[in-house]
């Protein structure tokens, strides 16, 4: 990757690798989330295709890419999970998998930190606080 001026100005999403990187990340990430006993029960939906699409939308959002997610949707989308007991430990587990996924894909540490910061800012919405 070159470091032209244009590159430096491009979004975090682009610097991570844009859509192809998201496509690669979503399977790794979703697999980690599904096999984590602390949180897998929140993902019991059998429609895996649809769920993988949701995971991709989430990844795209936290990487600062073009996404349709708003804080309001996050609240609505997680309200039923909060009723089932979704709390900070579960949120932390997801962030942990996000970090591991990006690191595994060779994303530079400062970029990973930025993504995690954005993810962290969604905590209040996800947990409906």
């Amino acid at each position, binding site marked *: 990757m070159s470091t032209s001026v244009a590159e430096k100005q491009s979004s975090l999403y682009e610097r991570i690798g844009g859509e192809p990187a998201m496509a690669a990340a979503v*399977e790794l990430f979703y*697999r980690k989330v*599904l*096999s984590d006993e602390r949180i897998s029960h929140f993902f019991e939906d*059998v429609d*895996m*295709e649809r769920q*993988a699409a949701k995971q991709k939308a989430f990844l795209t959002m936290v990487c600062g890419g073009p996404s349709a997610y708003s804080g309001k949707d996050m609240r609505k989308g997680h309200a039923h999970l909060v009723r089932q007991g979704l709390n900070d430990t579960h949120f932390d587990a997801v962030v942990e998998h996000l970090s591991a996924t990006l690191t595994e894909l060779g994303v530079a540490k400062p970029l990973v930190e930025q993504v995690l910061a954005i993810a962290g800012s969604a905590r209040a919405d996800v947990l409906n606080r």
Partner: protein
Amino acid sequence: MARVKHEGQWYGLDEGESVLDGLLRRGVEVPHSCRAGACQSCLMRAERGEVPARAQVGLKETLKARGYFLACACQPEGELEVAGAGADLRVPARITSLERLSDSVLCVRLRPEGDFEYRAGQYVSVLRTDGLARSYSLASLPHEDTLALHVRRVPGGRMSGWLFEEARPGDVLELQGPAGECFYVPGRPEQSLLLVGTGTGLAPLYGIIRDALERGHTGPIWLFHGAVDVSGLYLVEELRALQSRHPQLQYRPCVSKGQARVGVTVGALDAIIKEVCPRPAGWRGYLCGSPDLVLSLRKKLFLAGLSLKEIHADAFLPSTPPPQGGAGVMASASDASR
């Protein structure tokens, strides 16, 4: 209020009701089976109005572009005018032979009387002259002169019972389709293939394997055929013969109950697969048969490293009767009692 126009007449739909249920409730005959958007027997075409995207999931692009949709998955927002059922897509076919493959499985051979193109492993909707529709996977290869279906006898089953007891060579049916993404795509001949079927889920896999071999697939091909007991296994000799001609083919008949015997593995299918093929990352998978097994295996194989894009699955969803009386309350009551 949402409403549908069918053959010149308007029909109002209840809140959240599908086009299929709304028409059936008012006595309109529409072929259907699963009522879950899987079998494609309820195909219809919209002439005017907005078709929700959900009603076109799984349809070929050419059908989508022409306004076709699945009536059971279609809950329109406003007015929808349908131009007719999928009748214009149907091809008449004649039964050429009916042969028992085992006590519980019948091989039905059909000759289409018109153009009918398909890929080995796809499925078709079979319509009897009275409109009864059920989906069956194709076990034959496109260059064979007849289509082959493997039909399992379902206790009290209307279509399978008729095929077993009453159908005769020469009888006429209609075919609609083909549909489904379970087929072999040439391109990576060295890739390992993992095929898992329960019961007549073997039908499409039997087509896919022979297709892959004919097209020069060189990588290992693993076939796991699962049944409750040995009486549920069939084509055992044919598959063993195929294996002896193609050493890359590994055929594993498996049963969940019964005594161990030569050449048949006893145990839970997912555990057997995990033991024999522990790391299927980078493989291509095909899963067909009982919905529970197909869905849980898909998840397990994904977790074991198979990419979602590389897993092709056809769940053989059974028919679901429409809600009686038209009230939503009835529908949830009968659902709960299942």
